[in-house]
């Protein structure tokens, strides 16, 4: 099973994007950064107790499913949209949603456009092999508009194409748009149109048929969310473990029960995650939120208790 393989290997192999600011990109020292990357680290921390024991495999959109199917990676954490066909017919299983997103469109300000409905006849830069590409077709057809798709292999290239004037519109998940905008030569000359033309729940993917591993990944996500809900952060986690405020915290941090062992992990699995990677809020703020160049709002990614959609299942 995957969990045993990862343990015996001592390394988690994680498929990530080959360059998308805020989600996964190598910094100038070659360290991978981003929320997707940090999720991989969280899984490594849970399974191996050490978030650095991850081998990142940069994958293009086209390569990602093949790489996961073939076993080239153990986990795909690459802003991948959860759809029925992917979940049901490709031999894959989505373990949860790390980021609720929606597809948006970006245009140059000087076009004077305020709505996506005005885009009839436009050329659109889009990354090949994505749900984005499919949504785009649906949206323009639904609104009876014509368009011209220019499909690039990677999101970098869509930005470069847009920047050079090859297209009028750059479309992608709106979080990505925020990231790609930073790659433009003049980020202030563009606007992101208000419409969200699709639902884009992004989440980690594992191979179908390995319940145990899927649960490890899923509960890693819940641990991140639960920690934020209980106010446990990487700074106060030691303290919280020594003197848990609530029985919930005690169970999460392994002071009570053997919830880690039930999964095939050690009981301090969640402690390791929070201590070494942080909780969901920390991940978000650090990579895409206020502390990052992307400056995204929490929006639907706020906890349910704050009016958002993120909801961690209880450890009990």
């Amino acid at each position, binding site marked *: 099973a995957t969990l045993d393989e990862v343990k015996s290997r001592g390394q988690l192999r994680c498929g990530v994007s080959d360059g998308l600011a805020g989600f996964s990109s190598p910094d100038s020292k*070659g360290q991978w950064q981003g929320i997707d990357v940090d999720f991989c680290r969280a899984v490594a921390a849970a399974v191996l107790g050490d978030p650095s024991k991850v081998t990142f495999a940069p994958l293009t959109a086209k*390569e990602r499913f093949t*790489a996961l199917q073939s076993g080239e990676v153990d986990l795909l954490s690459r802003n991948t949209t959860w759809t029925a066909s992917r979940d049901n017919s490709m031999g894959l299983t989505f373990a949860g949603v790390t980021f609720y997103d929606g597809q948006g469109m970006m245009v140059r300000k000087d076009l004077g456009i305020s709505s996506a409905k005005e885009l009839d006849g436009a050329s659109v830069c889009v990354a090949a092999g994505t749900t984005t590409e499919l949504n785009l077709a649906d949206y323009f057809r639904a609104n009876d508009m014509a368009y011209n798709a220019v499909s690039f292999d990677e999101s*970098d290239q869509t930005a470069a194409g847009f920047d050079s004037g090859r297209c009028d519109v750059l479309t992608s998940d709106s979080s990505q748009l925020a990231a790609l905008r930073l*790659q433009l030569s003049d980020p202030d000359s563009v606007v992101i149109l208000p419409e969200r033309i699709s639902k884009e729940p992004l989440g980690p993917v594992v191979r179908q048929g390995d319940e145990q591993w899927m649960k490890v990944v899923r509960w890693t996500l819940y641990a991140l969310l639960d920690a934020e809900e209980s106010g446990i952060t990487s700074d106060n986690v030691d303290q919280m473990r020594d003197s848990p405020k609530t029985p919930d915290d005690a169970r999460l941090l392994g002071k009570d029960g053997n919830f880690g062992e039930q999964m095939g992990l050690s009981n301090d699995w969640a402690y390791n995650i929070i201590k070494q990677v942080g909780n969901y809020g920390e991940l978000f703020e650090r990579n895409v939120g206020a502390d990052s160049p992307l400056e995204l709002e929490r929006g639907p990614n706020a906890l349910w208790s704050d009016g958002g959609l993120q909801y961690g299942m209880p450890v009990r």
Partner: protein
Amino acid sequence: MAAISRDTNETLIASRPPPTPQGGMVSWLRTRLFSGPVNSVVSLVTLLLIVRLIWPVIDWALIEADWTGSSRADCSGEGACWVFISTRWSQIVYGFYPMAERWRVDIVLALFFMLIAWLVIPRLPAKKIAALLGLVVLPIVAWVLLLGGLFGLPHVPTRAWGGLMLTLTIAAVGIVGSLPLGVVLALGRRSEMPLVRAMCVIFIEFWRGVPLITVLFMSSVMLPLFVPANVEFDKLLRALIGIMLFWSAYMAEVVRSGLQAIDKGQSEAGAALGLGYWLRMRLIILPQALRLVIPGIVNTFIALFKDTSLVLIIGLFDVLSIIQAGLTDSAWLGFATEGYVFAALVFWVFCFGMSRYSQILERRLDKGYQR
């Protein structure tokens, strides 16, 4: 019958020096450039073309260019901004190799270039030893040093490799691996055993028929489907094997053309001296055949070297991919031309060097055993 001025001429007419040809610049220009109306027009048009094409490039790349600085602000924008390259220099050479361990790369690169120099400079003796060092000792040293994990050296996984060192590694391994494999395939294709021949033909035609990027794609993301679960290969190793198999097919065809050019008499003479098949191949046929096809072999090397840039497609960070990654750095947007020109220059220097060396080598070997 016509009178003959001299019937016999016992005295030797002394050899005289030739009448001095009218030399100088003018005559050179006249014969080489302006030897007729058509030629003159051609010369002028060519000259114009050169000025129109080359001058702006020189202007951009050298005269108006910015060389020093540390950030985008140091670029004047009038010409090329090489600052982009210089700030990323160490990444371009070492990739993500850990800072503290880069001396290991330095040693390997130094050894590599020293051996190349030894092989290339004609005056230096004992080329055979150099070749032996290059083919046997250097790979082992490089492997131990770069990968580490032995003799107390920390292990540096291949995914941290990158930049020029990765490009050179892939090229060197590809070259060293594909040649012997190609030779075996070529011999197989000329074998008298029909099954052996058929298999070699199928192998060669298959690899020559498909694009390298599909091969790389298969080896990088699909390989685990073909091997038993749990078997693991390093990603770099897989790319290397793919490249080696792919190019060995091309190499085989080159070698085969050399084998075909060797007279059957050579093999017969060997047989008549009592040499068996393998000795005949090793001592007589292959040395001649390989020498004959040096240009073809080097061309294949060059093609292989150029195609190392394709590993970009499978997510290994060679020189080109490192530079491309740098292009997405939001502090350095808009320097694609500089990046690509520089990458082109790196590849060009190596490839051109190889092709020139092969020409020199060919001439030198020719001189060796012809009168």
